[in-house]
């Protein structure tokens, strides 16, 4: 068949590469600022826009979706064209994908800074941006599948399978987890509540790790590692088992983020089983990657691209061993809510994603600019400083985690908590936090060196925007399966059918876990004393969400004696039924707050304490690492939204009486005046229309309903 000449679009690859470098620096500098706030809380500068709760989502989203996301697109746009021997399906779609993605990142940074957030970790974007994400993601998938369809090759290479799985699964996860009813342009309530919201959120959260941070990068590994090593992948057979086993198993593992929570035990068990089984395909992939280097290990010593890849794949192996171990309940009892999770996440993000992204950039940019890398020495230095940075980052966090978990659980000889003051368990960790910040600074130093090296490489070379290539047209064969052709072999040349098969594989686990949670009502036993929030408490809760309090405080007491002694009654599914969204959190930089309002409880504080604490936490305890929230005292509470909020809650099934939206603000003001009067009696003059009043109302409500039930288990009834 006659050869056809065509051109690869390198411009889109270059643009995504530039965006990767830019957002990488931004995202990690914000991370460093967060790390320093643990040591010097004053680095939140006393303004709302730079408090931990608001910029932590900027850091996580910038690193995951901006740095890693752009890196993923860079690698995919380059490799997909070459594996398909075809230009991208449509240049306009490529450009929409690029500019749309950058717009989303910019909107994310701005909205989070202004406190516009859903309060769901890694899914904090509000509904208008969520819709934009869905549109841009579809544009990416349309462009990708269009390219695969018009390819000049018969077989679809395994890297592309991982790209396809990434596309379909992220689409399903994003849409399912983002379903919400808008209250206004910048505020919505998720359709799920409490336990159900938690399950959907962590099904999404875990699989964002799986299908945004793992599968596309495995695809990149299957393309760039053989290219850089100049060796075909060790075992293509193993890659087939790796792909299907991984996507099938991964989707089930989400509930391991909710062990010992109010989630039904069957769902927790499923999460554990599938998490442990995940070691098999994960390590299969890692072994396949490392063995691809057989006979080429001598080059690893010299070539920075291979060096970065080897550490990336090794970090993948470490993370995918550590993750299943942390999913075992006995280990999770120690690791959860501590810095162990943060350390684990950063081995994956800095080691696997960060290093693989830089190996791809070091491989691609000299080729796009038809030159050599400006300095191999600097790239090698980047490698060593980065590796050292990862070690300095993770080790103190593991140390800190075990220290803190042990302190939380320790009792003295009288059977009382040895460290009843939570703050003691935080101040103990400050040296570890300082070492972690040094690790982060080292990693960023490496990145800055990498960026400098790549800028000089770009300057020294000449960009090749249109790269000529030639290949025979794809042979026309029947779409039907041949007599001797197996189902999988047929799928390997049918992109649409392959996409559907991948979709079915990922839906099985999701459906089995999530559907029963909605259909089997005994999963969420109701508690008679649990009532909807008052309008003032609801407004206060929205401020709690706005300020990102969940990034440091959990609302989830686990059924351990060490926790019930410290906080009070352990968490029940029925107490969260009106929580849109749930606010269980995943990390305790401060104490759990779910029993904060129980007057006779250990955690209870009067209104005046909350007022003074928000005004200046260090005045109450100079060792506190909490930022100041003085604007809550000066900001007027916007009560114009109350009727609409009540109506949306009613739509979601919260049993406010008919017409309550009309009188909600009267009730709100009545409760606000009572709190203001109580503060006045303590010598604090504050008007009832200030945000602090709503925040205090919400905090004082936490745990009251469960406590009112007396013996909570006696009031459990199936809905």
């Amino acid at each position: 068949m006659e050869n056809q000449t065509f051109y690869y679009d390198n411009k889109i690859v270059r643009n995504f590469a530039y965006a990767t470098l830019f957002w990488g620096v931004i995202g990690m500098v914000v991370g460093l600022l967060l790390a320093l706030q643990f040591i010097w809380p004053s680095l939140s500068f006393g303004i709302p826009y730079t408090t931990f709760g608001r910029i932590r989502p900027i850091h996580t989203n910038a690193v995951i979706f901006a740095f890693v996301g752009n890196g993923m697109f860079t690698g995919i746009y380059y490799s997909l064209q070459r594996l398909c021997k075809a230009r991208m399906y449509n240049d306009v779609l490529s450009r929409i994908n690029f500019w749309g993605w950058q717009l989303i990142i910019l909107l994310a940074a701005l909205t989070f800074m202004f406190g516009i957030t859903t309060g769901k970790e890694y899914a904090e974007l509000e509904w208008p941006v969520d819709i934009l994400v869905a549109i841009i993601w579809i544009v990416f998938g349309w462009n990708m599948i269009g390219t695969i369809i018009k390819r000049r090759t018969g077989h679809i290479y395994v890297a592309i399978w991982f790209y396809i799985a990434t596309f379909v699964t992220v689409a399903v996860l994003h849409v399912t987890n983002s379903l919400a009813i808008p209250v206004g342009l910048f505020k919505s309530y998720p359709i799920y509540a409490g336990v159900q919201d938690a399950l959907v959120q962590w099904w999404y959260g875990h699989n964002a790790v799986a299908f945004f941070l793992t599968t596309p990068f495995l695809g990149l590994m299957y393309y760039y590692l053989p290219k850089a090593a100049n060796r075909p992948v060790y075992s293509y057979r193993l890659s087939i088992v790796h792909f299907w086993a991984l996507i099938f198993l991964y989707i089930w593992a989400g509930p391991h983020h909710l062990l010992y929570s109010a989630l039904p035990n069957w769902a927790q068990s499923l999460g554990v089983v599938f998490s442990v089984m995940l070691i098999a395909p994960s390590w299969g992939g890692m072994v396949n990657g490392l063995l691809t280097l057989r006979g080429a290990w001598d080059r690893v010593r010299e070539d920075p691209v291979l060096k970065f890849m080897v550490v990336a794949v090794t970090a993948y192996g470490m993370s995918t061993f550590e993750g299943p171990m942390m999913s075992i309940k006995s280990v999770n009892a120690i690791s959860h809510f501590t810095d162990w999770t943060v350390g684990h996440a950063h081995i994956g993000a800095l080691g696997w994603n960060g290093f693989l992204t830089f190996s791809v950039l070091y491989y691609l940019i000299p080729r796009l600019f038809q030159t050599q890398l400006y300095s191999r020495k600097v790239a090698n230095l980047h490698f060593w400083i980065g590796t050292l940075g990862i070690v300095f980052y993770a080790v103190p966090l593991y140390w800190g985690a075990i220290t803190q978990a042990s302190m939380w659980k320790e009792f003295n000889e009288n059977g009382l908590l040895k460290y009843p003051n939570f703050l003691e368990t935080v101040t103990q960790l400050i040296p570890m936090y300082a070492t972690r910040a040094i690790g982060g600074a080292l990693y960023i130093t490496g990145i800055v060196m990498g960026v400098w090296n790549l800028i000089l490489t770009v300057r020294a070379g000449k960009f090749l925007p249109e790269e000529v290539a030639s290949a025979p047209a794809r042979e026309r064969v029947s779409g039907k399966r041949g007599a001797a052709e197996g189902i999988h072999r047929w799928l390997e040349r049918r992109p649409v059918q392959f996409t559907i098969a991948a979709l079915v594989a990922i839906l099985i686990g999701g459906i089995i876990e999530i559907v029963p949670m909605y259909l089997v009502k005994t999963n969420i036993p109701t508690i008679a004393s649990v009532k909807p929030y008052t309008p003032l408490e609801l407004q206060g809760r929205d401020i709690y969400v706005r300020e990102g309090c969940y990034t440091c405080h959990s609302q989830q007491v686990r059924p351990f004696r060490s926790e019930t002694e410290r906080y009070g009654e352990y968490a029940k599914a029925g107490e969260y039924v009106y929580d849109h969204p749930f606010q269980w959190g995943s990390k305790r930089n401060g104490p759990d707050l779910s029993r904060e309002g129980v007057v006779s409880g250990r955690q209870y504080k009067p209104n005046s304490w909350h007022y003074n604490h928000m005004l200046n936490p260090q005045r109450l305890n100079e060792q506190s690492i909490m930022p100041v929230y003085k604007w809550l005292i000066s900001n007027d509470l916007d009560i114009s939204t109350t009727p609409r909020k009540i109506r949306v809650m009613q739509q979601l099934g919260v049993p406010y009486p008919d017409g309550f939206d009309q009188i909600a603000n009267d009730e709100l003001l009545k409760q606000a005046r009572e709190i203001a009067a109580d503060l006045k009696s303590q010598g604090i003059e504050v008007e009832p229309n200030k945000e602090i009043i709503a925040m205090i109302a919400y905090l004082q409500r936490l745990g009251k309903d469960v406590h009112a039930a007396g013996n909570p288990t006696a009031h459990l009834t199936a809905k």
Partner: protein
Amino acid sequence: MLRDIFRSIGGIENYGIISTVIFAVFFFLLTLHAVRRKREEMDECSRMPFDDGHKEINDHKENQ
């Protein structure tokens, strides 16, 4: 010691049943399929990243 560790995991009695069923059905079929694939075919697939359309350009230039 190992027995004690496993005994302390909540719901351990279900783990074996669920995982056995999954492994038996899914991995068996998948592995069987992978093993039965022809070696030449697998080798050809694994070499795909090395053929990105530039070889033909070079061949074409050489023929000219």
